[in-house]
């Protein structure tokens, strides 16, 4: 086995893993803490990718900068979606079947709309850092992976700080464990959940921009990520952001090694295989509550 | 000396770091009426859940009618005659009141007798149980149309439909009026007259005292008293931990 190849596969895997962590952070909040199975999350990410693409191609803005500009819009979108979800389902305790069907429909509709607008051609962006690499000895750090990874980790860290240090952040952590206690503190659990869900969708904006820097996209790419997101969420343990990070890095490395040594066509099976394995053996994940 | 119908030995249950039940022993004789009391969070419902198999206890054993229950899943315990009603009524909302009663008949009783219960027989038994709890007029209605006390009665009737040897009635009277409480107590007494052993988990002391032949007190997961009701309520520790409040 070529040791160079292995080292670079691991590095690429770690960088990719950092990105996966950012992609999953949103679901870690909505599913891990709020118990809302938003399988449409990848569709929102793709939405972020395409908006970043449009701004990049149309106005020449750097995709990641564009996504930051779009954060308020995505936040508003998330708040709106939660409101619909809450009024239709959560209020009546009917989440399971109908909530799942709702989000599945949302995933599908978003994908089709993107397909109608942008077609089936792969889209990619232009940014200064795509194409070159940072070399440190035998190790290669492709900038198109490194920059997004750094941004992703920064976003992830910011999220973790928000949840542990701010009042609203801690209220979000509390609402998943004890909504009654929150009410006693005269904080409306519904409002907190809406904020949390809106934040999770806002993360999709940045995750989408990062995605399109890393690889060209077509609307169906979202589906590849459903498996990765839930595999990471379950493997890391629901509701645990540090667990999500570890699981994401792990998945990134395993996928990268599989891709390099067995071929990229096996990559989708890796995440779903890990998911099935985790569900069968240790459903609470590595660091689960 | 008769063998106890239910024998719980050394039962412990933890939730993460929190000890919900700590080495609980309990023996209930056939036909007995036992009251189980204790402050909120003392582990009463956890004990019920562990006995009937909804939760797994880490240590200790549950023996029912001479058979070890460890490892048996909830529906298997119900089939052996161990039934419980839920604290917050959980009727099957998509079915009629009568159909709610039908389910345990179709599954538990049929499993026990080894053959299907015929439609006519199931209908007859349903009506009999509904008459017992005075719900026969609402047999075809949805559980949504029932009042609070009627839902509690449905809950008990459904547990009864499984033809249990032992019934654990988990706080069936919370939030009911004076006469409604009396209603339920009378119902449980009638059930006991038919030979069913009953464990009543309750906060309403009046009901517990008038019903129980024996009183068990649970505080912070430990059993602190077990004996005749008049003696237990005079016990200092019990007064300090629970009754004095």
């Amino acid at each position, binding site marked *: 086995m070529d040791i160079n190849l292995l080292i670079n596969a691991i590095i690429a895997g770690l960088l990719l893993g950092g990105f996966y962590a950012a992609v999953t952070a949103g679901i870690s909040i909505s599913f891990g803490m709020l118990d809302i*199975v938003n*399988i449409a999350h990848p569709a929102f990410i793709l939405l972020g990718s395409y908006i970043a693409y449009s701004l990049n191609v149309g106005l020449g803005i750097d995709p990641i900068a564009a996504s930051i500009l779009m954060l308020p819009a995505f936040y508003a979108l998330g708040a709106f979606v939660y409101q*619909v979800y809450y009024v*239709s389902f959560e209020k009546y305790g009917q989440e*399971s*079947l*109908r909530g*799942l*069907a*709702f989000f*599945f*429909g*949302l995933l*599908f*509709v978003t994908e*089709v*709309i993107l*397909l*109608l607008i942008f077609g089936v051609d792969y889209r990619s962006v232009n940014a200064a850092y795509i194409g070159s690499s940072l070399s440190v000895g035998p190790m290669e750090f492709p900038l198109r992976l490194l920059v997004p990874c750094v941004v992703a980790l920064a976003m992830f860290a910011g999220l973790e700080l928000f949840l542990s240090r701010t009042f609203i952040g801690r209220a979000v952590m509390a609402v998943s464990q004890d909504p009654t206690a929150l009410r006693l503190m005269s904080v409306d659990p519904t409002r907190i959940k809406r904020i949390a869900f809106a934040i999770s969708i806002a993360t999709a904006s940045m995750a989408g921009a990062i995605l399109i820097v890393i690889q060209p996209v077509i609307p169906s790419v979202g*589906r590849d990520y459903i*498996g990765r997101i839930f595999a990471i969420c*379950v493997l890391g343990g629901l509701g645990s952001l540090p667990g999500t990070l570890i699981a994401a890095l792990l998945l990134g490395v395993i996928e990268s090694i599989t891709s390099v040594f067995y*071929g990229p*066509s*096996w990559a989708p*099976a890796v995440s*779903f*295989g890990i*998911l*099935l394995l985790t*569900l*069968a053996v240790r*459903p609470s994940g590595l660091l689960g509550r | 000396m008769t063998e106890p119908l239910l024998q719980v030995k050394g039962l412990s249950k933890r939730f993460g770091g929190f000890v919900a039940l700590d080495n609980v022993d309990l023996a209930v004789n056939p036909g007995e009426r036992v009251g189980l009391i204790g402050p909120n969070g003392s582990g009463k419902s956890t004990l019920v859940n562990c006995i*009937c198999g*909804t939760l797994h206890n880490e240590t200790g054993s549950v023996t029912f009618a001479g058979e070890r229950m460890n490892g048996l*899943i909830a*529906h*298997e315990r*119900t*089939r052996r005659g161990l*039934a419980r009603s*839920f604290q917050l009524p*959980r*009727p*099957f*909302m*998509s*079915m009629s009141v009568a*159909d709610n009663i*039908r*389910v*345990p008949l*179709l*599954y*538990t009783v*049929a499993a026990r007798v080894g053959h*299907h219960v015929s439609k006519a027989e199931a209908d007859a038994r349903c009506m009999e149980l509904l008459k017992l709890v005075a719900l026969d007029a609402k047999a075809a209605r949805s559980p949504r149309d029932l009042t609070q006390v009627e839902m509690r009665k449905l809950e008990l009737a*459904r*547990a009864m439909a*499984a033809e249990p040897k032992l019934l654990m009635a988990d706080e069936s009277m919370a939030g009911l009026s004076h006469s409604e409480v009396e209603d339920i107590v009378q119902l449980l007494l009638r059930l006991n007259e038919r030979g069913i052993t009953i464990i009543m988990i309750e906060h309403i002391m009046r009901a517990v005292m008038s019903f129980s032949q024996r009183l068990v007190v649970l505080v912070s997961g430990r059993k602190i008293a077990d004996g005749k009701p008049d003696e237990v309520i005079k016990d200092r520790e019990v007064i300090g931990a629970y009754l004095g409040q």
Partner: protein
Amino acid sequence: MRTPVFVLLEIIAGAALFLILRAVNNDYLFFAGYTVLQFIVLSTAWNILGGYCGYVNFGSAGFFALGVYTSVFLYTVNQNLEELMPEWLLPLMQAIFPLPMPALILLGGIVAGLVGLGTGYLTLRLRGVFFAIATLALAVVLQTFVVNWSFVGGSRGAYVIPPGTVPILGPYIQYLFLLMLLLVILSLTCARLIERSRLGYGFATIRDDELAAEACGVPTLRLKLIATVLSGALMGMAGAPFPYYIGYVEPGSAFDLSYAVNSIAMPMIGGTTWWAGPMLGAVLLGTLQQIATVTISSAVNLLIVGLLLIGFVIAAPDGIIGLWHTWTSRRSKP
């Protein structure tokens, strides 16, 4: 209505439909009708687990494709009998192969049923949500395996050449149509039988309150496994004739997400608590899709399905049947 009478009525209705289409003698109607019948089977199958038990299956495409690729596998085996089989087995194999379509259907059902059993055994002890995600995972894992398996064509796909004509009936498509009609009768009878039996009560309790169901003596895991196996097997059976219907199979189209969306949307729009609900949804939505694909585009068609699904889930969760019930009960109230 007792079941044998019901089956007789179904057979009469099916025969009538078939004879009418034969009289019109337009092959396109058979091709389009086959698709609608296929959807009836898929959505009725989905509903057994989804509507009756409340466990959502996102991987309908996976079970369907198991039937598809079982057929493709056996077809390819048949094309290469001499290379694959040892000398002493060859005469026997040549006598058995090519397997008749009904045998392919049965085998497709068995394979899909077994996979359903395995998946269910692994994941049905967990919350319904995890089961749903696991079914999605299953579909992708299966697709990846197929893509990497060159014997069944891999990503390039496989050509399956059906016989041109069939004795008595004539065009092969009519034979497939007839078989699919039989599958429709089978799945509708199954669904209706379940609904009226003890199993139906058990399924409903699982949907309503699994914990209470267990306390009432319902063996929830066993029932869920039964539902999963039945549902998966029916989907596999629906998939088995597909390669012969379409002629060219590649993983992208066999595992298409639209199968998952349709098999959820059709029961939810028609009504999940009645055996005829999925059929109603399949006929309405299936016909609508045929029209939309031909007149507008297939992408817009999918958009309509997705929007209808969301709309019904929010506003009319009991489907058209539910709306009808509400409307009639309002009218009967004084």
